[in-house]
């Protein structure tokens, strides 16, 4: 087979069609496409892609199995390290992880590792549904707080080692941000629940409707006989800009906007009882993946115009390239070097306009991106009737406030060792967004994996 420079395209729903529905946008590879894409892999002696994977997937090995048309073996290799492959295959920023290191990327396009991962995971789920192997049980209990990517990964890895693991989840379904944050059209909830079912099959018990810090504290859990606790509560407190008029009706945090839509299925209102109000002209403040999700969701909910309003330029946008492209194809418009400074409302208290200011880019700041500088006198009004504030989240305070002795950072995140997740309290580990601040699914999974390993060593008395 001749080596192709470009990767095999993945079929997607037509933008004109998909903007009217919540069905998945990217449709996935067929077996033939997957085999063809897999055949591009050079099987390097020193596979750099592996080093780019936070959960240490044996990438060349699973791709080899695909080349040999053995998806079952590929699935086994993949699931050995990654407990949530169908999720990662869809939402990981592979371009900055495994694929960034792929040698093919030097001259052409890197192997589409993420798409192959998705193919294998979907194939396995639909065709064989691998049963986890039985492991010898260890008579020790671990409590995991939060069932997002960090918690699920830590739980699965500990269960695979034989621990008795219970996950405590505050919402009524497990999955965390995978359920409430990422839209159905990017990550079908059915896929998330099926991957969680696999984790349940490993023996993990999941208790929903349980708010650690309220229903029970960490001290209560340790007293109840848990030998270790992992905190994976995520970034769960939306940031606002504290602008005049920011509490007007029609101004949502991205979390509220997406939770109503994704978790509570407001797009099926009134069949589902949770409402969401959508205007004709929607402005989303921010340009990360969450902002793209909100802007695209707004169109699907019936908005006529949906804008990304971002104070830097296109180059600095933190969202994945693919998400930005998909948003553009669907008609999302971009207002760069612009940021709101105030909101104006009507007599009923509903937002009707926002006053924006123009920015120019100055010298790089501590994040390495060029710093936006406000241009005096550049204010202008933009009519809007819905605003979604998607400028990130702070740490949720419920666990920190009720856990005396837990040392926090200046920003209120939990201070934890990067390699082990160890916190200032014995038996208590933490990882994911609650430690790092809002990041990606795969980084949270990586933290969960490292913490699971550290908890194992700790409970085996290998380390204190």
């Amino acid at each position: 087979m001749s080596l192709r420079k470009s990767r095999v395209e993945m079929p997607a729903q037509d933008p004109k069609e998909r903007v009217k529905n919540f069905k998945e946008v990217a449709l996935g590879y067929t077996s033939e496409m997957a085999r063809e894409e897999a055949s591009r892999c050079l099987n390097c002696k020193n596979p750099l892609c592996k080093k780019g994977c936070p959960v240490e997937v044996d990438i060349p090995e699973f791709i080899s199995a695909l080349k040999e048309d053995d998806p079952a073996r590929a699935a086994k290799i993949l699931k050995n390290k990654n407990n949530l492959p169908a999720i990662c295959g869809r939402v990981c920023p592979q371009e900055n992880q495994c694929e960034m290191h792929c040698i093919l990327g030097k001259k052409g396009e890197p192997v589409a590792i993420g798409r192959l991962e998705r193919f294998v995971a979907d194939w396995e789920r639909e065709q064989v549904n691998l049963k986890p192997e039985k492991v010898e049980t260890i008579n020790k209990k671990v409590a995991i707080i939060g069932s997002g990517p960090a918690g699920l990964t830590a739980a699965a890895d500990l269960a695979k080692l034989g621990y008795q693991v219970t996950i405590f989840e505050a919402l009524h379904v497990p999955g965390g941000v995978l359920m409430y944050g990422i839209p159905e059209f990017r990550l079908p909830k059915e896929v998330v629940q099926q991957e969680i079912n696999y984790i349940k099959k490993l023996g993990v018990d999941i208790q929903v409707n349980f708010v650690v810090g309220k229903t029970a504290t960490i001290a209560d859990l340790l007293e109840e006989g848990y030998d270790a606790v992992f905190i994976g509560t995520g970034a769960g407190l939306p940031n606002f800009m504290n602008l005049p008029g920011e509490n007007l009706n029609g101004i949502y945090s991205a979390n509220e906007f997406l939770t109503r839509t994704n978790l509570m299925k407001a797009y099926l209102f009134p069949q589902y009882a949770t409402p969401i109000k959508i205007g004709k002209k929607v402005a989303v403040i921010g340009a990360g993946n969450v902002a793209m999700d909100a802007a695209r969701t707004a169109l699907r909910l019936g908005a006529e115009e949906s804008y990304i309003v971002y104070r830097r330029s296109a180059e600095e946008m933190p969202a994945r390239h693919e998400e930005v492209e998909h948003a553009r194809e669907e008609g999302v418009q971009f207002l760069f070097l612009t940021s709101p400074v105030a909101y104006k409302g009507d007599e009923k208290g509903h937002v009707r306009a926002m006053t924006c200011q123009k920015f120019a880019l100055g010298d790089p700041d501590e994040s390495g991106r060029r710093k936006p500088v406000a241009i005096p006198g550049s204010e202008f009004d933009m009519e809007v009737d819905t605003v979604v504030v998607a400028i990130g989240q702070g740490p949720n305070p419920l666990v920190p406030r009720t856990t005396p002795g837990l040392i926090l950072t200046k920003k209120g995140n939990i201070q934890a060792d990067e390699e082990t997740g160890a916190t200032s309290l014995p038996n208590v580990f933490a990882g994911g967004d609650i430690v790092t601040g809002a990041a990606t699914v795969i980084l949270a999974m990586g933290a969960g994996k490292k913490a699971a390993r550290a908890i194992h060593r700790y409970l085996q008395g290998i380390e204190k």
Partner: protein
Amino acid sequence: MYEILKNEVLGSNIYLFEVKAARIAAKAEAGQFVIIRLHETAERIPLTIADYSREKGTITIIFQAVGASTRELAEYEAGQKILDLVGPLGVPSEIENYGTVVCIGGGVGIAPIYPIARALKEAGNRVISIIGARSRDLLFWKEKMAAVSDELLIATDDGSEGRKGFVTDVLKDLLEKEKIERVWAIGPMVMMKAVANTTRPFAVKTIVSLNPIMVDGTGMCGACRVAVGKETKFACVDGPEFDGHEVDFDLAMKRLAIFKDEEQRILAKGQCGGGCGCH
């Protein structure tokens, strides 16, 4: 699943439910709330904890069936189960021995004021309670309130029970007559605003319990934001109790009306297929 042990009608469209929820009962304190979701397609709705029994492992919620979700909840009978129940949420009331305190419950707000009055009484305060409603058929728990109060005063708008007038009329007389250390008021937003306005000239610290629109109830979504002083607070994790003199009630009332149109749509869907409102 959480079993309903009791469904009692307390007054006109006012219902009391006792629900089995041992873990929540074990931790519940005065001033806190729970979130319930009746079934798969239902909303998450916050309801204040009106009472709890650690021994029986139960909590009591009281609500007025006014919106689509509460009307639906009212139809549930003892023995049936609620799909989701989570809590206790929110910061508990600050209970200390202040001296003489006034606890005001307006309408369905009588329910959440009860555990606060009880806790204040247990902490050694002289508790004067004022309960009020539009008319006597909306009043409930007079005996329970009397049992935890040194004095119980009643006001109804139509004069069908107690003094004719508002709870604020009764409160004003009290404030003029004696030294009050602290006031708690729970009820409709207009009532809490009126109470705060009544106590302001007397400089008596006044705590109100806000009931904004909420989704997750754990700080995640920011739907429940309220302006207190110069700051934006989240009622679910910073409240639900706030200093009534600092709360922007006008904003809070506007925010409560966000989904009024949608509420009408869902009510129309649920009834006789035509929104006749006949039951």
